[in-house]
Structures are given as structure tokens and as C-alpha cells.
């Protein structure tokens, strides 16, 4: 840690990991409800568990992004953070708002929550992933703006590097596209149309810029490869992301009532979306192979390489699988989507956050790397979580294929619930993989509590 103010990243990382644990627990509850439908009913119905699972994911990833920015920006800008106090204040605002929202989801019926929080003043609730009550949405905007003000001012007074500019572009984009969550036209087609401006343009647009910048930063630190080389890669990846990702939004417009040309636009451009992810994989391996130094933090290197591979597989390959309109006609909204969602979120945004945390946390705790035993534990966690996500994805893909076959093909397709009964075996297998994931996550958390007396460890 070169700058004192980087220390504010630490509470963000801790909160992120805590919420990550919550996300996984609710995922397990929901996975069990897939096979035992009345589990925990009426205390935690499936729709509530699902909302908590996905909302916690988004919130903890945002905590991770913010923590990463607070760590990365001062080092890139070579100056102290504009205001560490503001960063601390926003941490508590965001954490309390997030916690209250989850408590609201769990304690009152959603409709009651909506009327309690002024949804009749400005109706924004009730849409997948954007279920947050109005005050929470406003809170997110305030936190995001203050955060952006803080890091933008830091960059303005310090050195301006490609990495920090790309990161800023991504984070500003994140805030701007979130504003579409306040736009809720009564025309259902328009509602869905702009809903994707938040959802798609986040994960297949501006978040990829954030991912690229974070990965580039860690790779510079652990490989010692020239900044010029890494920056050139970063620019090409970013350009490809935007060329393919923006019009690629069209792959969500196939069946929502938009004009037919979206089937062509969406298919062609989103078919190219794996390219920037593949470049990211090549980039990560290429840089590590050309490394000029042996960084003692082996675990961070593993996470960085893992991000490259898993984001390509999850977002790139599994996304391509069902992105062409003629294929999506059958796969739309089946377990294929769930398979893609799990591996893409884990491979891209979970892993890049864990890469950053893995690199930065030891620094924040005053050492360049954790002890060997702590790193070994962390690498076990890496493999357990990664392999179980691969299993979850494969089981859900199998479930999806069977579901499509039974429910959507042939002259006398099965009803939805009958088809669900036929694929139970895959849901059991998925739930078991989820438990292995939890074991991996617990080991991961445990690795933070190792005594680091063997200090500076892996020499």
C-alpha cells in the first residue's frame, strides 16, 4: 500500500465478501426450493429468495468495484484520495441502505414494501433485478455520484493513466445507465426496452470496461510487464467490447414487441461479443508468460488467469450458445439462461473482484503477500468454487436442453410444471454443487484468518 487513503478500500472488500456469503446462502435456499417447493414457506418464498440472491450479488459486486477503485485510483494517480472521509461516509450509507432493503424484502410482503416506500409517487419497483424500493434507488444514485466525484477529483489532481481513464469511463457509465431504472413507462414494450439499458449495458458494456481496467492493473502489478503493452491491449479490448456490446443489446429485443430487424442486429453483433472476452483470456495468459518478476502473491495470479478463462467460457461461450435469434426462439427463458447467468457472473464479475481483493488485501494488511499456507487455502477455495460453478453450469445446461426438448419441441409439448418434474435430477445435482461452492467460499473466508507469522511468506 503506497498511499494511506487506499485503506478505505478495506471495509468495502470486507462488506463485499460478507454479502457474497449471504448471496450464496440464499442461492442454496432457492436451489433447494427448486426441488422441495414449500421449503421455508411462507417465511421465505421462492420469489423473495430469488430477489435477495440477485440483489445481494449486484450490491456486493458494486461494493467490490468501489473498493477496487479506492485502492487502484490513488496508486494510478500517484496521489492521496480526494476525500477518504467521504468514502467512509458513503460506505456506511450504502451498507445501511443495502441492509435495510434486504430486511424489507424479508420481513414485509413486497406489495406492502412498495406502498411503504413511496412506489405510488414514482413507480420503479417490481422489475427483475431492479426490485429495490425508491429510497434505495435514490441512495444508490447518491452513493454513486459522491463516489464518482471522489475518484474523479483524485484523478484530476494526479497522474492520468489509461487504466484510470477506462475505469472512470466504466464507472460513470454504470451510474448513468442506472438512471434508466427510474424510467418505467406503462407501455410494456418500452418498459422492457429501456430496462435492458440498465441490465444489458451494465454487464455487457460498461462493466466490461471496469473489468478490463481492474485486470490490467493487477497484471501490471504482478507481472511487471510494460504499461504501454498492457494499455494497448486494454484499448483494443475496450473498443471491441463497445463495438459488439452496444448494438448487441438487440439480442434481448427478439421477442418483446420490438421491430423484427432487431433479430438480425442482435444476432450479428452479440455473436461477436465473445471476441473481447477471448482477447481478455489471451491477454491475461500472454502477460503472465511475459512476466518480468515473480510476484510472491501466487493466489492473485491464479485469480487473474481464472478471470480470463471463466469470463470467456461463461459470458462468451455460454452467451453465444443461445444468442442467435433462431436458437433463442427455443431457449429463451429456460435453464440455459440460468446456466449462462451463473457462469458469466462468476467468471467475469465475481472473479475479477476476488482477483483485486486477493491482490490488494495483503497490501492493505501491510504485506506483499499472505503466508504460503494462507495462499494454499485460498487456491483450494479457488478450485472448489470454480469447479462447482462449472458443474452448476453443466447441470443447468443439461436441465435446459431437456426442458426445451420436452416443453418446446414436437407436436404435443409437455406443460411447464410436468417438464420441471422430469429435470429434478439435475436440480439435485446443482444443489449439491452449490454446497461444494459454499465449502469453497468458507475456505476462502478462512484464508483471511491465517496467522501470517511465516510472514512475507512465499519469499
Amino acid at each position, binding site marked *: 500500500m503506497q498511499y494511506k487513503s487506499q485503506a478505505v478500500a478495506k471495509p468495502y472488500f470486507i462488506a463485499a465478501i460478507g454479502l457474497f456469503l449471504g448471496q450464496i446462502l440464499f442461492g442454496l435456499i432457492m436451489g433447494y426450493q427448486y426441488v422441495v417447493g414449500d421449503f421455508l414457506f411462507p417465511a421465505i418464498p421462492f420469489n423473495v429468495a430469488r430477489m435477495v440472491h440477485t440483489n445481494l450479488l449486484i450490491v456486493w459486486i458494486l461494493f467490490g468495484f468501489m473498493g477496487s477503485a479506492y485502492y487502484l485510483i490513488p496508486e494510478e494517480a500517484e496521489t492521496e484520495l480526494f476525500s477518504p472521509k467521504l468514502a467512509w461516509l458513503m460506505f456506511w450509507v450504502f451498507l445501511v441502505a443495502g441492509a435495510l432493503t434486504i430486511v424489507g424484502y424479508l420481513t414485509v410482503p413486497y406489495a406492502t414494501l412498495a406502498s411503504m416506500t413511496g412506489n405510488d409517487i414514482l413507480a420503479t419497483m417490481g422489475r427483475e433485478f431492479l426490485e429495490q424500493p425508491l429510497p434505495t434507488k435514490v441512495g444508490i444514485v447518491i452513493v454513486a455520484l459522491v463516489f464518482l466525484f471522489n475518484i474523479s477529483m483524485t484523478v484530476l489532481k494526479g497522474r492520468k493513466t489509461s487504466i484510470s481513464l477506462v475505469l472512470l469511463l466504466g464507472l460513470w457509465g454504470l451510474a448513468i445507465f442506472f438512471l434508466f431504472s427510474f424510467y418505467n413507462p406503462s407501455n410494456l414494450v418500452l418498459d422492457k426496452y429501456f430496462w435492458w439499458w440498465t441490465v444489458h449495458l451494465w454487464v455487457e458494456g460498461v462493466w466490461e470496461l471496469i473489468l478490463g481496467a481492474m485486470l490490467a492493473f493487477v497484471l501490471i502489478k504482478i507481472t511487471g510487464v510494460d504499461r504501454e503493452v498492457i494499455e494497448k491491449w486494454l484499448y483494443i479490448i475496450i*473498443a471491441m467490447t463497445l463495438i459488439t456490446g452496444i448494438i448487441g443489446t438487440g439480442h434481448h429485443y427478439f421477442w418483446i414487441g420490438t421491430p423484427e*430487424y432487431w433479430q*438480425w442486429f442482435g444476432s*450479428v*453483433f452479440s455473436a*461477436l461479443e465473445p471476441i473481447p472476452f477471448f482477447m481478455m483470456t489471451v491477454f491475461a495468459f500472454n502477460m503472465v508468460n511475459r512476466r518480468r518478476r515473480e510476484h510472491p502473491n501466487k493466489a492473485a495470479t491464479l485469480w487473474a488467469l481464472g478471470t480470463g478463462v471463466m469470463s470467456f467460457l461463461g459470458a462468451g461461450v455460454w452467451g453465444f450458445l443461445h444468442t442467435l435469434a433462431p436458437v433463442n426462439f427455443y431457449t429463451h427463458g429456460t435453464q440455459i439462461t440460468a446456466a449462462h447467468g451463473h457462469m458469466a457472473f462468476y467468471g467475469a464479475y465475481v472473479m475479477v473482484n476476488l482477483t483485486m481483493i486477493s491482490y490488494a488485501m495483503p497490501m492493505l494488511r501491510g504485506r506483499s503477500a499472505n503466508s504460503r499456507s494462507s495462499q494454499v487455502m485460498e487456491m483450494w477455495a479457488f478450485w472448489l468454487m470454480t469447479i462447482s460453478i462449472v458443474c452448476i453450469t453443466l447441470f443447468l445446461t443439461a436441465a435446459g436442453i431437456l426442458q426445451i426438448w420436452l416443453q418446446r419441441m414436437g407436436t404435443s409439448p409437455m406443460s411447464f410444471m410436468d417438464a420441471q418434474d422430469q429435470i429434478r435430477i439435475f436440480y439435485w445435482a446443482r444443489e449439491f454443487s452449490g454446497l461444494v461452492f459454499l465449502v469453497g467460499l468458507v475456505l476462502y473466508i478462512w484464508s483471511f484468518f491465517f496467522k501470517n507469522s511465516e510472514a512475507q511468506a512465499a519469499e
Partner: protein
Amino acid sequence: MIILINNPKSAHQVYATPPGDLAIWFFIFAELLAFGIFFAAYAFARAHNIALFDASQQHLSRTSGAINTLVLITSSYFVVRAVAAIKQGYSNQCARWIGAAIGFGAIFLAIKSFEFYGKFSSGITLSTNTFYMFYLSLTIFHFMHVILGMLILAAVMLKARRGGYSAENHTGVETGASYWHMVDLLWIILFPLIYVIH
């Protein structure tokens, strides 16, 4: 960056790396891939609906398309002359050739706008039919690439005018030229594919 592998006296230079900045080649391949998939999709869609495609195609102006083809090929020739000029160190000449190429790019845009005006005023949109969907999206995407190419060439021209390039160091000119040739190449495929072949 240019390495002569053959006899340096040979009239033909063999490049070990493509001319210009390597990064522009990533863009060029990505662009060619995107257009390539669109061209393939056009062929696929046409094969399912030949009558509609042939009937709609009759309403396109092959004359303006042909003139535009000549215009773009000519502008590419000017860009070749610009690269040849800077290789001998003639900055101002280089800038003038690029200026001429940009001018021809503008002529292309003008003719194309005229064509679009005709189509739009007769009520044709992306939703008219599949042929017009392809016609409009491919030509509009290409139109935007012409604009981008002109902006790149303009940046190169301004730098050349300031004496920013020399006989030894002119990667930027080659970078801009490569992109412009790609814009030209795309049109050379697009024109026969959409306007002529039936």
C-alpha cells in the same frame, strides 16, 4: 517497423508486419468479421426469399452505386499517392493527396445521402421488408464507416501538414491508409452484392 526480407533493391517490399500500427489491424479484422457475418446473413436470407429480394433490388439505383464505387476507388488511389509521397519525405504533397481523398469521401456521402433521401421519402424503413432491412442497415453502417475513415484521414492530414511525419517515420499515414482501404474494400463487396447480383 518495416523489415525488408527480400533483396532491398527489389521493387516489391515484403513486410514482416502489416503496414501501419498493428492495433488498426485488429480493428480492421473485427470490422471485416462483422460485415462478413452480415454479408453471409444476407445471402442466407436471400436464399429463402429470392423473389422478394430480386423485386426490391430493382428499385435501387445502380448508376449512383456505380459512380460511388468509382469515387471510392479513386479516393483510395489518392491515399496510395499520399503514402508514396511521405515515403519520399514530401509532407505537403502527402497532406494534399489525403485532402483529395477526404474530398472524394465527401462526394460519396453526398451521392449516398441523395439515394437515402429518395428511399426515405418513398416511405421505406427498416421494417418495409427483409431486403430493405439489409440494404438500409448495411449501407448506413458503411456510411458511418466512411465518416469515421474521413475523420481518421483528417487527423493524419493535419499532422502531415504540421510536418509530423517523415520518410523514416510515417506509421500514422499507413495506419489511416489501411483503414481507408478497408472502407473501400467493404463497398466493393457491398455494391455488387446488394445492388447488382440477382
